[in-house]
């Protein structure tokens, strides 16, 4: 399959004197984490299918600085931000899409103050636009009637008020979208934000991801849909911790759409 993936870089576009429609910001998880790489590929397949002229920065991409900033290291964050902004401004990037809500939030909200002004979209928003414009179509067969619950990523939902784009996509699969008791603006965190992903939790009586997974299990889903590589990891671990591995799959919304396409 992999030879079918077309993943041009900004440098290649530049060499041809062309400008892509959109920059796909892959992010660290999407580049290095084994689970998240599958999300990256699923999204690229959809971009290829829809004939979107996109490019990635490849080896010129670097961490947005989000985990450093949330950990309190403003220096490191701004160093990362300014470096990335220099690269992107040199390529005259106008529009960015990313499958990571942390990258999305940081580039969209925190880069403008440091000289980086771009139109930034989360991949669920971007996919929805492709569907609305008819550049991509979904035949819902595979997920018809499946119970899917969507876990809101904090930095997409509460952080930026985007609740409907991922849900609209799930509805288009003819799936049965079921909501957890705390969802949308009151959605419970997966436990990874604020740089928690990279450290052990403080002493408590439960892990946050287990609590959240239990909330999901309450509504008896066959699939827990996520829109963030970190949430994906946390929910996958939560499903394992509650011994539901055989019954519940954790999938990114892009993977759901790509699977529905038989890609």
């Amino acid at each position, binding site marked *: 399959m992999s030879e079918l993936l077309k993943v041009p870089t900004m440098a290649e576009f530049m060499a041809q004197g062309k400008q892509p429609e959109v920059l796909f910001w892959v992010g660290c998880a999407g580049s290095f984490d084994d689970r998240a790489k599958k999300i990256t*590929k699923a999204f690229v397949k959809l971009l290829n299918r829809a004939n979107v002229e996109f490019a990635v920065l490849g080896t010129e991409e*670097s961490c947005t600085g989000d985990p450093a900033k949330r*950990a309190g*290291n403003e220096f490191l964050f701004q160093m990362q931000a300014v470096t990335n902004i220099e690269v992107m401004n040199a390529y005259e990037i106008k529009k960015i899409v990313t499958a990571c809500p942390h990258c999305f939030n940081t580039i969209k909200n925190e880069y403008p103050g440091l000289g980086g002004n771009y139109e930034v979209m989360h991949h669920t928003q971007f996919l929805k636009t492709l569907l609305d414009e008819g550049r991509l179509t979904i035949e819902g067969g595979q997920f018809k009637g499946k119970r899917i619950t969507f876990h809101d990523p904090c930095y997409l939902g509460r952080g930026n008020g985007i609740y409907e784009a991922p849900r609209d996509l799930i509805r288009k699969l003819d799936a049965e979208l079921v909501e957890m008791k705390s969802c949308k603006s009151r959605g419970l965190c997966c436990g990874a934000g604020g740089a928690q992903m990279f*450290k052990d939790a*403080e002493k*408590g009586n*439960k892990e946050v991801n287990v*609590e959240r997974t239990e909330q999901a299990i309450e509504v008896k889903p066959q699939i827990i849909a996520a829109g963030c590589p970190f949430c994906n990891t946390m929910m996958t671990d939560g499903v394992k911790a509650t011994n539901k591995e055989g019954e519940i799959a954790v999938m990114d919304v892009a993977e759901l759409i790509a699977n529905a396409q038989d890609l």
Partner: protein
Amino acid sequence: MNYIPSILFAIALIAGIGYFVKNINKLIRNIKLGHDVDVNDNKPQRWKNMAMIALGQSKMVRRPIAGFLHVIVYVGFVVINIEVLEIILDGLFGTHRMFSSIGSLYGVLIGTFEILALLVFVSVIVFWLRRNTLKLKRFWANEMTSWPKSDANYILYFEMVLMALFLLMNATDVQFQAMNNGNIISEYIASWFGNTSGETLHIIERIAWWLHILGILVFLNYLYFSKHLHILLAFPNTYYGRLKPKGQFDNNEAVTKEVKMMMDPNVDPFAPQPESTEVPPKFGASDVQDLSWVQLLNAYTCTECGRCTDECPANQTGKKLSPRKIMMDTRDRLEEVGKNIDSNSGEFKLDGKQLLDDYITREELWACTTCNACVEACPVSIDPLSIIMEMRRYLVMEQSAAPMELNNMMTNVENNGAPWPYNQMDRLNWKNE
């Protein structure tokens, strides 16, 4: 004519309002200990937020039961206070029910007040039961012992007593009952006094009247010492609340300056530093003076309802972090600093204490997932997360005191451009895997 009651009343009124104003000035001075922050943008949106969130209680009703009861008490408080105007004028001029001359409209007004008074009385009892008998979890958290717990109950007792006195005062007012205009609730209470002589009724009425207005003045002055300050500060606090997306954290300007200088190839690193008398800025916050005045206003506005803590993922899973405690600690420390200034003739004397460690522990700060659930939950636009972030910044940038795993993560970001130890040159390898 006997002037003594009028004079006594005027003295009580001046003393009550005077002491209140004195404390409000202290409150403003304490809030101004915070550094300045620009909140002059987008005034229409700010007014709208105040109208919707504070005046319109839009966030209170997200929890329907508490929200409904709170709206009753809130509307009752605002509307019944119109009656206080008459009471004050009567008290000063020795008149009796000065406004009753307006006729049937007076009955409509007083009738409304009486119905609201009864509703408030009942709601407050339900509030008390929720807090003390049902023992809702958020009212029994670790930080809700001693004073915070008593404070909450005192407020409820105050309101019960004030409403009861208002109805009793109307019920024992023989003239008012004879008018039969607006005594919609008090007529039933009046019937309990069927055998009481007119003389006794008059004495009870006077006592109720005086206790009611004195109670209001005492309650007014109680505010400064209580979480109940929210009835005033909710308005400025929602006005100055954040307008930016919740996910957007401020970029520290002092850091931006240094980073820009580091990245500028034209800067000569060996150039002599200009003599500067400017105190180098402290990065982040270790004490209340390092926070912004909006954050300090937040602390005074908090009424300790605990919705933030209730929604906090760290708190829900048994960690020590409680966003409500962050706000309570900030206020307690600010009060301590204020008292320090008072007793040292206007100057703060170092007391060997600070907000960090002496009030808020590192364990609490590091348990936060920055998920914004607390910010979303607050019915009066308080932002506990911003305080947590400022304190993390101090820990990391001033003290290099991050947990070891986070130091590893940051070293990776610095060296490899990723939070994990992968080479940046391998960033596109997934394409061919």
